[in-house]
């Protein structure tokens, strides 16, 4: 059983997050497959009406704690709080020595991909540690890959955070990586990721890039004629997974790289006349090259009207 720890709430300014949003954020994290949510005690106590603090009466000797999802005796879900007992260490792999019976979180390790990381992982797995959580840094843009490879190599705990305003592996990428590797054992529901993104943007006021892997608004837009041709025939041809898996949907858009097929598809989709498709495509290609963007549905409708008027004028003349 792999433990996925989410650290998003430790990376944000949480003062202005209201309890309802906080509660919803945690619910969505658990739904998408997170095992433990790391947060400050101060923040956890703001959640108090919603959980039973199993060990919260014990002395607090760590800065953060973990929120976990458990089941009551009658099977109903309940949140519990436990102290974060992981000792954080940022040490190079060569200095990893006696970890026996320890509860450790390893930080840093950002350059593992450029090394023989599998042998380093093996050494860590044989270290005799009680708990070994990996939270690699993203300074070299490889944190997600390191986290995923750690789990695939036999690691049992990774720490991540949602989206990309932090130095940790990206939660949504790690979860999707796990789901694609072993769909049958993955228990999370990633269709809530789109809701999680909206809520994240609301509570942080930080916009998520349109091309951000897994959650970007534009990642399921298809423009180039070659890809549109494939996607119309069978969407799986150019999609790594069904957009619905992450609560999104595909969209065929028109631009410089569109072909005749794309225009016909869009005209049919919007119940518009196909008469002047060739002329419309030419206008779109020229216009989009200058603008450096796609054509909106409203612009397409307007273009169809104008081309039609132009045709009618020519006929009457």
């Amino acid at each position: 059983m792999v433990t996925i720890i989410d650290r998003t709430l430790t990376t944000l300014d949480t003062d202005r997050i209201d309890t309802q949003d906080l509660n919803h954020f945690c619910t969505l994290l658990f739904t998408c497959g997170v095992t433990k949510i790391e947060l400050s005690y101060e923040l956890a106590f703001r959640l108090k009406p919603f959980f039973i603090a199993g060990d919260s009466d014990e002395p607090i000797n760590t800065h953060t704690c973990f929120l976990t999802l458990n089941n009551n005796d009658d099977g109903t879900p309940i949140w519990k709080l436990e102290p974060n007992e992981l000792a954080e260490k940022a040490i190079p792999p060569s200095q990893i020595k006696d970890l026996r019976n320890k509860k450790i979180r390893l930080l840093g390790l950002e350059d593992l991909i450029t090394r023989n990381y599998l042998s380093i992982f093996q050494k860590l797995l044989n270290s005799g540690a009680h708990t070994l959580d990996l939270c690699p840094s993203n300074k070299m843009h490889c944190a997600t890959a390191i986290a995923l490879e750690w789990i695939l190599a036999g690691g049992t705990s990774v720490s991540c955070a949602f989206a990309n305003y932090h130095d940790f592996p990206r939660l949504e990428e790690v979860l999707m990586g796990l789901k694609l590797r072993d769909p049958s054992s993955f228990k999370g529901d990633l269709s809530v990721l789109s809701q999680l993104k909206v809520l994240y943007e609301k509570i942080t006021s930080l916009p998520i890039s349109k091309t951000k892997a897994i959650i970007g608004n534009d990642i399921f837009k298809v423009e180039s004629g070659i890809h549109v041709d494939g996607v119309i025939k069978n969407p799986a041809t150019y999609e790594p997974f069904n957009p619905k898996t992450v609560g999104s949907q595909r969209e065929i858009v028109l631009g410089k790289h569109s072909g005749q097929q794309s225009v016909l598809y869009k005209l049919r989709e919007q119940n518009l006349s196909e008469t002047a498709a060739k002329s419309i495509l030419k206008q779109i290609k020229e216009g989009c090259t200058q603008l450096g963007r796609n054509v909106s549905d409203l612009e397409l409708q307007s273009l169809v009207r104008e081309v039609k008027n132009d045709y009618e004028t020519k006929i009457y003349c």
Partner: protein
Amino acid sequence: MKQKYIVDTTLRDGEQSPGVAFTLKEKVTIAKALDAMGIQRIEAGTPAMGKEECLAFEKIKAVCQNAKIIGWNRMNLSDIQSSINCGADIIHVCVPSSDLLIREKLRKSRTEVLEKLEECADSIHSAHKELTIGLEDASRADWDFITLLIDTAIRLGATTLRFSDTVGIMTPSICKNYISNISSNINIEVHMHNDLGMAVANSIQGLRSGAKYVDSTLFGIGERAGNCNLEHLLIATVGQMDFGICLDELQWRQERLRPIIFKIHPNNIYRLSI
């Protein structure tokens, strides 16, 4: 340090990113900057797209002093002729290699794919051009067919074989398994997509497993979540791999190209006129 080479595809796969589109002048400006910073190969686009694209190739050829210019092509004689006509140094043929693409997109058989590839190679050799072959969707293809395609590519005289993770589903260890099993009788190029956020890591693993060339784009632009980001690749491989490119120079040149690459701004909403 290991010597490796960049194939920049900002002007081809990068431009296929929805909403990204370059004018002829902009393509030439980007190509000139790429050449100046020491990029070895520039995939400048798809000549089959039309006259404007062919004209861009001619201008790019004229301004680039060192980089070899690649024309990207579907497995189609007419496309290839366009690339030859516009003076591309390297004629790249993209070969759908997974059964999914062969069956669902091409609506052909594996045998037909092999036959068509032979025809394409003949036409490129007749024009005395360098041939490179790309295995589209190789990460979802049957390994036996991949092996057959690699043997065919070597027999047909292709100088480089591009291994494409077209939908970005690989992990570094899977990448290693594939690339390290490709024959050493042909140069290997890896083309990674960022759908799982691992394009840089997979590219590094591909290079560590034997690839000589790696595809990347400025700002990591490309289909869906993009391609391997050149700046990130250079940062991640400092002291480990030498691409003949200075990171500082790349960063300032890339920043100067930002307004051309991301043209969208709030005022850019005027209606298309006819």
